[in-house]
């Protein structure tokens, strides 16, 4: 009887611990590419939002009175435009062809990293790296 109850308790504990894993997102067969493309678009959108946000941060040199301070955006307009154009193009491509989501999204990040001004690359590096991490996990951990 004691052995029975021990086995019973063990079964409950194991069953509970196995059931406490991450909840998989249910997907209908055939919808995976669109779902993954959607998540990739979200990741790329975050990169664009980050670029626009950084472009809105002014960095000002110390003023020498009476001259006003000279300010420039943390991320240059030129680099921000590059990010916006690449992300927008990639998002439209993903909408048209969701099946190629991983290649399209990764290629967009590669183009951003390659075309940014040298001075601006450090600013965007962490955001493109984060997006790469997200895209790498999309198909693995839906």
């Amino acid at each position, binding site marked *: 009887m004691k052995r029975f*109850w021990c086995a019973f*308790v063990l079964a*409950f*504990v194991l*069953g*509970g*611990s*196995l*059931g*406490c*894993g991450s*909840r*998989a*997102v*249910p*997907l*209908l067969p*055939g*919808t995976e590419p*669109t*779902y993954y*493309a*959607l998540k990739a*678009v*979200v990741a*790329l*959108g975050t990169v*664009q*939002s980050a670029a*626009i946000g950084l*472009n809105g941060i002014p960095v000002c040199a110390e003023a020498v009175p009476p001259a006003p301070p000279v300010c420039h955006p943390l991320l240059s*307009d030129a680099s*921000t*435009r590059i990010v*916006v*154009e690449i*992300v*927008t193009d990639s*998002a*439209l491509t*993903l*909408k048209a062809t*969701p099946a190629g989501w991983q290649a399209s999204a990764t290629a967009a990040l590669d183009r951003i990293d390659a075309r940014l001004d040298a001075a601006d690359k450090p600013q965007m590096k962490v955001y493109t790296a984060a997006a790469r991490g997200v895209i790498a996990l999309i198909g693995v951990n839906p």
Partner: protein
Amino acid sequence: MIALILQLAQVLAPMIITAYEDHKAGNNGAAPTQDELNVALAAAVSRIVAEGEAWKAAHPKPPA
């Protein structure tokens, strides 16, 4: 003995309930249809395009 069982049940009950709810959500939860995903994807792309266009409108490209 009964007290021990009751104590164990108190500890295990939340785990069992969570496992059951996870199972129920995983197997009986509604999955998005292709149409729903298409709409969501189109909406996400539209938001990105709109954000980009708004920024470009506020920052016209300087003449070459």
